[in-house]
């Protein structure tokens, strides 16, 4: 069925597609009404994607896919992936509405993404926006009192339609204009996923992603603690994309306030960190097999020796009297030093970030 409005135009909606079930359903609900839908997916730098772990060799055999692309393909829609990582920094660093349980600025984030989608919509001559939001499903951004905040602060106003809970919200422009039929929209609320699963079954969706902790690393306590450590060490809340990528990789230990070590946990991470050697002082055990490690921060000779002793602890020579560690400076200058590996007792738990 093609929905034709009074002026005989098929209406076009842009959907925020995360790759999860809710946005998949929201798109399908609109497609069923004959609306032309295309998807937008945002790269913030903090996105959780299965193949972020592709750098870990042990995960290589598991199927990797970008769920947003997969969903778009299932729905037969185009997907536009936008890199908003640079502008997104201000959302993470200065969230007007504060953080959630961790460093997740969910309400500011949603408003920012809708605003970006609005801008895309206007540039590409689309008529309105949709999201897969369900009232009461998320503690910050999907509450009855905060959903209007997103509409208002993003500038989308009543051009923002949430098909899965539209009946619980005031009528939007697409409904008033008859571009979509409000009666065929839904009234989902709360954290119970059964209505979504029933609708998925009705639409014949046999497979869909069910992200356990949302789609953002900032909701993860361990990741947030590494980011907080980074800000504390620098004395200011700033980051570059390489910084936040590095927080996803390796073991992080901070023996001194002014530097930390990123130690690969396995071969895949070693290969990945190898690509960053020009940006950091790198250490690699040569007398024994072991992981590559990078020093993030400014390290003097004493610090480098401590770092080398720490790296030696994580190599196969941890019980040897001496381990030879190759140290490569950022300018490529290379030398070997012999160090005694730290014992387990010499590594305080608080060094682990």
């Amino acid at each position: 069925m093609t929905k034709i409005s009074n002026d005989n135009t098929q209406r076009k909606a842009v959907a925020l597609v995360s790759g999860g079930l809710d946005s998949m359903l929201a798109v399908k609900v609109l497609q069923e009404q004959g609306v032309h839908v295309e998807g937008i997916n945002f790269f913030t730098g903090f996105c959780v994607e299965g193949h972020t772990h592709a750098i870990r060799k042990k995960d290589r055999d598991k199927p990797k896919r970008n769920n947003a692309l997969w969903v778009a393909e299932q729905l037969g829609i185009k997907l536009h992936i936008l890199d908003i990582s640079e502008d997104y920094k201000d959302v993470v660093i200065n969230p007007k509405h504060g953080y959630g349980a961790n460093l997740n600025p969910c309400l500011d984030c949603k408003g920012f993404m809708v605003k970006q989608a609005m801008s895309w919509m206007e540039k590409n001559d689309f008529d309105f926006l949709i999201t897969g939001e369900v009232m009461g499903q998320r503690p910050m951004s999907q509450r009855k009192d905060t959903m209007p905040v997103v509409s208002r602060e993003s500038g989308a106003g009543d051009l923002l339609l949430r098909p899965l809970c539209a009946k619980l919200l005031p009528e939007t422009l697409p409904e008033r204009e008859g571009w979509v039929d409000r009666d065929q929209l839904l009234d989902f609320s709360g954290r119970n996923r059964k209505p979504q699963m029933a609708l998925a079954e009705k639409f014949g969706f046999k497979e869909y992603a069910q992200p356990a902790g949302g789609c953002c690393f900032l909701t993860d306590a361990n990741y947030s603690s590494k980011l907080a450590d980074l800000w504390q060490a620098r004395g200011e809340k700033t980051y570059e994309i390489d910084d936040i990528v590095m927080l996803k990789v390796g073991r992080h230990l901070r023996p001194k306030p002014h530097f930390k070590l990123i130690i690969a946990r396995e071969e895949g991470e070693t290969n990945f960190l190898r690509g960053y050697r020009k940006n950091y002082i790198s250490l690699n055990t040569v007398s024994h097999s072991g992981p590559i490690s990078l020093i993030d921060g400014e390290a003097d000779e004493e610090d480098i020796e401590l770092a080398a002793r720490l790296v030696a602890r994580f190599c196969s020579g941890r019980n040897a009297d001496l381990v030879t560690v190759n140290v490569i400076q950022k300018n490529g200058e290379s030398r070997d030093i012999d160090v005694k590996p730290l014992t387990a007792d010499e590594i305080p738990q608080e060094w682990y970030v």
Partner: protein
Amino acid sequence: MSEPVLDARNLLCPLPVIRTQNQVEKMNAGDTLCVQCTDHGVINDIPAWCRINGHEILSIDEQEYEIIIRLRVGKGS
């Protein structure tokens, strides 16, 4: 004219897809592009992105550390 090569090494998905998307936007139908990557996720993602957007994968060369993908830009770009 020689085939353009896009260096997307040391980028994690979806960045290689985004860089490919942005490069293809500047190209014409029928042009070919070679993308160098290190994230093995691209083996699924770049072909999926091509299928959605009407581009053609010409080859995927999976090496130990790198993946080289060649594609031809479709008419829909």
